[in-house]
Structure formats: C-alpha cells, structure tokens
C-alpha cells in the first residue's frame, strides 16, 4: 500500500535525523501533510504503529497537521485559502492561480531523547 511505503520513508528520515543528533529514541513526531500532496493522513496514521515496531521510533506518537490549499489569484491580487483540494480561487472561481501551500509532506517537529 502507498501509505505503508511512505510511512517507511518517514521512519527512515526520522531515524536519520535522530542519528545525526546523537539521540537514542524518537518519542514524538509531527508531520505537515498538504491536501494536494497525494498522501492520505488517515491511511498513514493507520499503518504507522506497525511500521515503527522494532525501530528507534517504537511507541512514537504521531501528530499530523493537515495543510489546506493556499492559492494566489492574479485576478483578485490576493492569497486565498481554499476549502477542499481543488486549485481555483474561491472568490472569483479563476483557475489560473498559483498554488502556494498544500503540497507539503514534511517532518516539522521531533521529540527525541
């Protein structure tokens, strides 16, 4: 499954950071997941406990911040937050917009010991 392999990548990245910081365990992890990233937070949360078994993230708590779409509309000349995953301006329905947020898949915070 998609999120299973992504969860494995998350664990690898986190383990890498932990090693560089000279820590022993990751206790908590926060991810930013954009609504247009192609990653499902529910599915990731679901397979995470299985993926961390036997790793330095065992029993690690996972927090996920879902990042909504933020678009810049050249018509309205302003940034607008969009409900849902459709990249268009919520004020004027313009489709020629620039996506400024909503594609992230980042580790933003880690608690380690």
């Amino acid at each position, binding site marked *: 499954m*998609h999120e299973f*392999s992504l969860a494995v990548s998350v664990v690898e990245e986190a383990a890498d950071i932990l090693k560089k910081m000279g820590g022993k365990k990751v206790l908590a992890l926060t991810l930013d997941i954009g609504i*247009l990233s*192609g*990653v499902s937070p529910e599915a990731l949360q679901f397979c995470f406990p299985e993926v961390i078994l036997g790793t330095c993230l065992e029993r690690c708590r996972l927090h996920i911040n879902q990042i909504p779409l933020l678009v810049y509309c050249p018509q309205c000349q302003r940034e607008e937050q969009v409900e849902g995953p459709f990249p268009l301006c919520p004020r004027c329905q313009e489709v020629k917009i620039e996506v400024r947020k909503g594609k992230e898949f980042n580790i933003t915070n880690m*608690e380690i010991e």
Partner: protein
Amino acid sequence: MMCDECGRHETKILSMERNIFKKNSDLAEQNRLWFKAHGIRTINMMSSPGSGKTTLLEKTTRAIQPFGKMSILVGDVQTEIDADRLRNAGAKAQQINTWNGCHLDAAMIARQLGNFVTGEEDLLMIENVGNLVCPAAFDLGEQYKVALLSITEGEDKPLKYPALFHQVDLILITKIDLEPFLSWNREKALESLRRINHKAHVIMLSALSGMGMEAWVDWLKEK
C-alpha cells in the same frame, strides 16, 4: 524538557522542515541530468488500471518508428505481461516489477540507466503502475507527465484524484471509439479537467480506431 513518562531524563524538541520526498526528488534530478546529457526525452504515463496505456504504447511503437529510437520501461506490481505485449508489437521494452510498491520511484529508473536504457534513445516512455494515487507523489526525472483517462471511467475522475491530474502536462482521453455506446458527457469531462488543471493540453484518442493518434504522435515529435 523532562520525560513525560518517568519525569527523570531529558528530552529534546527539534523543529525543522524535512521533506520526505527529498531522497526521491534528488535522485530524480540526477536522472533528469542523465537524460539531458544523452539527449533523451522522457515521458511518465500514469492512469487507473486498464485505461489503455499498454495498448497506446503498442500503437505508438509503430507510429514513431520512422522518427526516432524509442525504449519503454513498464512498471507493474507483478508479471512480465505488458513488456511481452510491447515486445510483440516490436518495441524495445523492459518490465520493472515493484512487488510491494504501487508506483515506480526514481531509484528504479536510475538502475536502468546505462543498462537497458543505453543512452542512444531519442525517446523513453515510462508506463507507470496503474494507479492514480501514488505515482503522483514520485518524480522519476521525466520531462513530461501524461495522464490517461478512459471515457469508461466517468467524467469526474479528475476531481477525485486532483493531486495527479493537477501536475500533468498532457491529458489523453482514451477509448473515444466507445463514445456512441456510453452516456459519457464530453463537456462535463473537459470542465472537470479545466478545474483541476487549466494548463494541460488535452487530446482525445482511440488506440483502437486510430482516431486522434496523429495529434498524439505530433505532440511526441514536438517534445
């Protein structure tokens, strides 16, 4: 900070912005440089299972022959079936089995460079695993992304998979020969595509009847 559980030893909070896709995107960037150095155009074809990727590539093999050298990498979870089909159609094709994965990634492509992909090609076509979710997140180092949408899938498919349809350069509406038999609404489909991706070029075609194949081959030649 003190540990929540035992209240004795120290814990540390780290803030960062570490992209999980970075390893893949770095590798994809290397692939892209390799393609550029060898003058190869690479195209990543993505769609639901059964939208007609292999059939289109079979037909493309014949159509593109006079214009240049093409190789095909084809991803599937299991089996060599698609690569066999393509070789029977006269193509130079190599299967990549992903086993647990449901998409190709940049490392799988990198392993083929200098091996199956010799560097003498003008065009490298990559048939991704039939799936509209995962391939969207993995850059392979291609220059262009193409999505196929067969008219049997319904008009609002792009709205259900915005992450994929948003980022492609070309959308092929396939199996257009079936239009007389379906209640498929062309205007509605184009409208949902426009909402997700106003920049993509759209070509309607049928690999079966040959309708629209010329526009597709022209697009390939242009690229």
